[in-house]
């Protein structure tokens, strides 16, 4: 059990790469925090600094109010699980799990007790005498978790622990790890580049890009109120549509216009930050599911309706993706309800935007205009 605090942390590698910049984050005791972002954004580097495997170039990291900058890795009371869970091939599962404890010269009884208990939690008691070769991918992953659990650490660090598993197993292990967190009641820091994984597992997510934190929020907040176009585009599949548009103010009404379309925004947009941009270019963001081809909705909302050509219809069962083009030039993705959708390839279709679920971003800074 431990709280964590990163204060203005930087990592500059030899050769000039600044992998992490001004990283500030507080993690509460027992929290499950996820670091997510594209390849090379500095997730592993952040984790490795916390673990003590990389020096901290600037700033401080605290574990339970103790600055650990100069604390040796082995004295930080942390356990790590990596992508390459690499079990010790010549040892039995039991010895794999006991290894770190034997190294610490823990009494045999205590080692046995801990291994047994961890094996029970992970439901691998029947595998203890096997060698890693005789295990499935999922079982190996459990043993890797077991090796970390037996240490009874203050903090668990996991760096893409599931990325070597196939898709189905990955989904299953996500649930397992979430359960494990509830059961162990310990602080977890989990790294992934997969936004779906982050959204399904994390209670709080740190989105990173180019070494900078972009936003720290709950999954729903990230989804509903992304602070900039990067977060908006990174979170959610298929990604948000970004449209270059112009803001127009007519009296107390605000419109966004693009191509041959003008969409009236709800009253909450009649505020100064928006009104002062009359005539200016903005980035208009709409998630695919905020565009509908439902006839009733479209008829009821003429102020946000428009037409488009249907290029592709992708039916996935529970939902249907429409890939359409507006005015012959602007491509959009829509996620519609297969039970009501009538759209077919080659048609011109009537669509409407749910204007309560739209986003406006500054054209230059790409920051959200109102939150």
């Amino acid at each position, binding site marked *: 059990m431990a709280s964590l605090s990163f204060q203005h942390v930087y990592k500059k590698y030899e050769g000039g790469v600044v992998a992490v910049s001004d990283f500030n984050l507080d993690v509460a005791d027992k929290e499950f925090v996820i670091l997510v972002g594209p390849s090379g954004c500095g997730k592993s580097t952040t984790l490795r600094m916390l673990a003590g495997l990389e020096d901290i170039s600037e700033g401080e990291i605290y574990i339970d109010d103790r600055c650990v900058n100069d604390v040796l*890795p082995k004295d930080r009371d942390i356990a*790590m699980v990596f992508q*390459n869970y690499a079990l010790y*091939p010549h040892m039995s599962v039991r010895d794999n799990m006991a290894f770190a404890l034997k190294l610490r010269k823990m009494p045999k009884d205590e080692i046995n007790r801990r291994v047994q208990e961890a094996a029970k939690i992970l439901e691998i008691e029947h595998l203890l005498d096997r060698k890693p070769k005789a295990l499935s991918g999922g079982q190996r992953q459990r043993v890797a978790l077991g090796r970390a659990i037996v240490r009874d650490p203050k903090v668990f660090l996991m760096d893409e622990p599931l990325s070597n598993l196939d898709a189905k197993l990955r989904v299953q292990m996500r649930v397992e790890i979430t359960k494990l967190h509830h059961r162990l009641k310990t602080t977890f820091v989990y790294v992934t580049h997969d936004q779906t994984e982050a959204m399904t597992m994390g209670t709080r997510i740190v989105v990173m890009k180019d070494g900078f934190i972009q936003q720290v929020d709950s999954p729903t907040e990230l989804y509903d109120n992304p602070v900039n176009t990067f977060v908006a585009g990174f979170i959610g599949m298929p990604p948000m549509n970004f449209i270059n548009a112009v803001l127009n103010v007519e009296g107390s009404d605000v419109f966004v216009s693009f191509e041959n379309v003008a969409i009236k925004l709800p009253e909450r947009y009649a505020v100064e930050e928006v009104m002062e941009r009359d005539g200016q270019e903005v980035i208009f963001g709409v998630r695919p599911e905020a565009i509908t081809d439902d006839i009733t909705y479209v008829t009821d909302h003429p102020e946000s309706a428009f037409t488009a050509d249907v290029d592709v219809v992708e039916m996935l069962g529970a939902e249907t993706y429409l890939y359409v083009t507006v005015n012959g030039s602007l491509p959009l993705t829509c996620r519609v309800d297969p039970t009501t959708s009538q759209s077919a390839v080659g048609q011109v279709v009537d669509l409407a935007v749910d204007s309560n679920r739209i986003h406006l971003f500054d054209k230059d800074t790409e920051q959200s205009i109102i939150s």
Partner: protein
Amino acid sequence: MEEIKKCMRQVKTIISANCGVIDTAGKILAATNEVGEDEIDPSFRAVVSSENLFASTADRTYLKVFIGEQLKYILYIESTDPDAKISLQLIAEWMKTLVKEKGTDAEKAIFIRNVLLDNEIRSEVPMIARGYKIDCNDPRLVLVVRTATEQSAEAFEILQNLYTDSEVATVISMDDTTAIVIIDALESQVSEESRDSFIEETSQSVLACLTSEGCKAKVAVGSVVGSFMDISKSYSDAMTALKVSKIFDGESDLSRYDKLGLGRLIYQLPKPLCEMFIREVFPNEAFKQLDEETRTTIDTFFANDLNGSETSRELFVHRNTLVYRLEKVKTKTGLDLRKFDDAVLFKMATMVRTYIDYLNDTNDNKIR
């Protein structure tokens, strides 16, 4: 030292009275109850100056332990029963064998180090090896483990704990940043595939073991050789892997000799040839004109096997943006990276450039 402590721990399970070992300076090296360790034994002087092998105080019996002619240790037991002397004699004999074995361990390490460095007469290796109970016939794989000086002792200890069975692997300390793991590779002989997974699993597990114990290490893997006689080849391959991957892939913690690819080839080229090649492929320093963004784009494009959709997805740019950036590269360098031949040429040229930079940085100007 470790041996003596271990011995005392085992004595504790057999003899109920507390025992301990004192060195010739009077310091208690180890005690079964761990009391007074590292402190000076108060009766030490009196015991040493006595003529007899045994000495007694009010509550303790002492025995001097000689190895050869030399007084090496003094054992004590917290008892004055007649049986106490017998116990002490037994412990003394036990300790002598342990300490002696330690001696041959050190000799064995020196021998293996010499074989690694090719400093032994080849025809003599099998016989000496047999003396140390080393099986000469099994194939072997050598791993070089590099750590910072301040972590090397710790890394060595971790590795020794990982490989306690010398039939699986032997761990040798080479210098103050390098440990060597010599692994029995019989398992790798079944098929090409089994060799690959053997190398991968073994090296990854060594790296993971060190990392999860908080040791930052680089692991380099040599080639599998047919017998203990040839470990020097595997060792020198591992050292090459370490160097080459440092030049071409500084970030990676694991390098395999059999996966060095182009790097291994370029590493052999003389500098003038490299410079000529660059002048021809990138006239007018065209490479330097590519900005950071473009270079990242190219790296990602290569990492995704020239797959445009994957690349744009990973970079979060539109497909057209990618095409535009690649066109820009074409204008500047004359190479169309979507074409296989041009991509190969570009890749080689960037690696040759990296190599020239390395040579310039290290002033390693010798012509190979």
